[in-house]
């Protein structure tokens, strides 16, 4: 923080406004269906990662089972739409609520667990959810999946095109980041960071550790559920293979790459790591062979990123960007008022 927070805040607002305008204008300027589809998936991951960032990045509660909440959201939405004919918006709401309940069910018994114990418990939860998706054939369609999920629609307005889906997803990305950003900027966000740094210290400040942990688990799970619902209606078909341990780990990698205590960093991590296997969408003229290679080595990229970030830049991209900004500022003859 500089000596003039008003100025820093203004330049941040300008940056955010520029990103929002660019994202909103994109389909009207350059409407490439493949690009928009990839960017929609990027947006879906940003929503999950926003929630995971609160839970894992800020509160320090590791979850290796977030794919489960994503899956619970997707199946809730898909099943209600396909088998019960619920309207889209009701499916979304139900997905969020059911995922939140899932978060509550996982959070309450695992409250006492920390670090690797919590990691293993959430991993087991994720695996059990996966088995449930596969085995509850009557509801989920089992390993063959659930198809025929209708596109999002509001009354007579059906959002089928890549453009409309893209705008819908990124509208929700905006909402999710706004809500999460407000949380981390204010009292509850400080409580999360305090919890991460020292539970005893947090308790000594009057923070109800149990309640805070349950709350952040629930918020995090509901964001994953929201993303799952969007995903289900976008692709029209879901199967258990979309909700595996691998995804849970990739989500953690996105938060780690972006920076543990930074929402914007986590979002950036999600963007980067979701784009890597689909790089041809944003880099025109990339050879199919190169894309194939990237996809083949995707897991290696994730693994190496996890290790390298932890070894050499524990603060992730966010801290790196901070350092870079500091370096640039030092290099430039600073205007007197920017000196803190």
């Amino acid at each position, binding site marked *: 923080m500089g000596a003039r927070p008003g100025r820093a805040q203004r330049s941040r607002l300008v940056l955010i406004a520029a990103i929002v305008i660019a994202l909103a204008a994109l389909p009207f300027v350059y409407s490439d269906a493949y690009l928009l589809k990839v960017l929609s998936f990027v947006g879906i991951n940003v929503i999950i990662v926003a929630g995971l960032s609160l839970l894992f990045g800020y509160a320090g509660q590791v979850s290796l089972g977030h794919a489960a909440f994503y899956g619970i959201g997707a199946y809730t939405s898909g099943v209600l739409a396909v088998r019960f004919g619920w309207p889209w918006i009701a499916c979304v709401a139900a997905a969020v609520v059911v995922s939140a309940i899932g978060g509550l069910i996982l959070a309450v018994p695992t409250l006492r667990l920390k*670090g690797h114990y919590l990691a293993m418990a959430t991993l087991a939860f994720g695996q059990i959810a996966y088995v449930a998706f596969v085995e509850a054939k009557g509801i989920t369609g089992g390993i063959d999946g659930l198809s025929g999920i209708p596109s999002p629609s509001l009354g007579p307005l059906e959002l089928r095109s890549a453009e409309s889906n893209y705008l819908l997803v990124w509208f929700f990305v905006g909402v999710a980041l706004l809500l999460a950003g407000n949380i981390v900027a204010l009292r509850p966000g400080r409580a999360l960071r305090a919890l991460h740094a020292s539970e005893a210290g947090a308790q000594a400040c009057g923070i109800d550790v149990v309640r805070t942990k349950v709350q952040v688990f629930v918020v995090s799970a509901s964001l994953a559920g929201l993303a799952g619902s969007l995903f289900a209606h976008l692709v029209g078909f879901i199967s258990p293979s979309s909700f595996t341990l691998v995804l849970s780990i990739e989500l953690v990698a996105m938060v780690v790459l972006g920076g543990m205590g930074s929402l914007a960093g986590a979002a950036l991590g999600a963007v980067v790591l979701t784009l890597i296997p689909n790089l041809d969408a944003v880099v025109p003229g990339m050879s199919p062979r190169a894309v194939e290679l990237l996809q083949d080595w995707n897991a290696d990229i994730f693994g190496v990123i996890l290790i390298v970030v932890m070894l050499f830049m524990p603060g992730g991209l966010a801290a790196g960007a901070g350092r870079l900004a500091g370096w640039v500022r030092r290099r430039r003859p600073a205007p007197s008022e920017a000196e803190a």
Partner: protein
Amino acid sequence: MGVDAEVTGSELLQFIIAGLKNGSIYALVALGFTIVYASTKAINFAQGEFYMFGGMFAVFFLSGLGMPLALAALVSVITVTAVGLGFDRVAIRPRRDAGPLTLIIITIGGSMVFQSFARHAFGPDERPLPVFTAGPSIDFFGAAIERQTLWIWALTAVAVVALTILYTRTKLGRAMRACMENREAARLMGIDTNRVVTISFGLAAGLGALGGLVVTPLTQTAFNVGPSMGVKGFAAAILGGLGNPLAAVAGGITLGLLESLSIGFLSSTYKDVIALAVLLAVLVLRPEGLFSRASREKM
């Protein structure tokens, strides 16, 4: 197996044999978790990959390089042990004191890299290994024991005895136990704790590899068998009580029996859920394990 099938005496015996067989493998993987935990207070999420490497490298040395089976097995264990030592040296040691979250992330990263390496190097298919001794199963009161199962039991027993001797009779073992009790105190006593941790990773890798290669003749192996075995091994380790080698063995055997008997009496549909449910139940109800009197970590 139907839900309401009658279970006869010999069938029961068969389930127990299967449980003891799987349980021995779980015990070997669980020992890996527990040895690393004892010296670092960290969970190595890449432990399952050592198990996978054990089978995959043995297959490679046998069919790829034409080594005889016994040599291929031995070289595989040595190779994977070296991988474990190297993993600690490169990725763990620089950040060893950075706290559990960091080590969780690093070992998960390691797990992904190891798995991918195996896929790139050995291919995506399932790979078999011949049984160590050919011949028909042995009849044991109406139940059949495969010869490979005897190998599994024998090699597990050898590993456990060797480990016990290491821990109780050697200077290195005493240093490892001192680290287990209190790493800071051990360091003050002049024990090279870095070396102890590195050796722990090597031992854990070697034990995991042994488990992987000795079971491959029965199950085949593939690049992606690591994580699920990792979860089972961890479930066994925590069922016993983390950080105590004998408890890890007891936990492995218990989990194997529990799994096999519930398949027998219930249904095989939820075979993989048993270990997960055990894991969750132990974590939630009794995180210090069933066979360990170690006190819970204080806040």
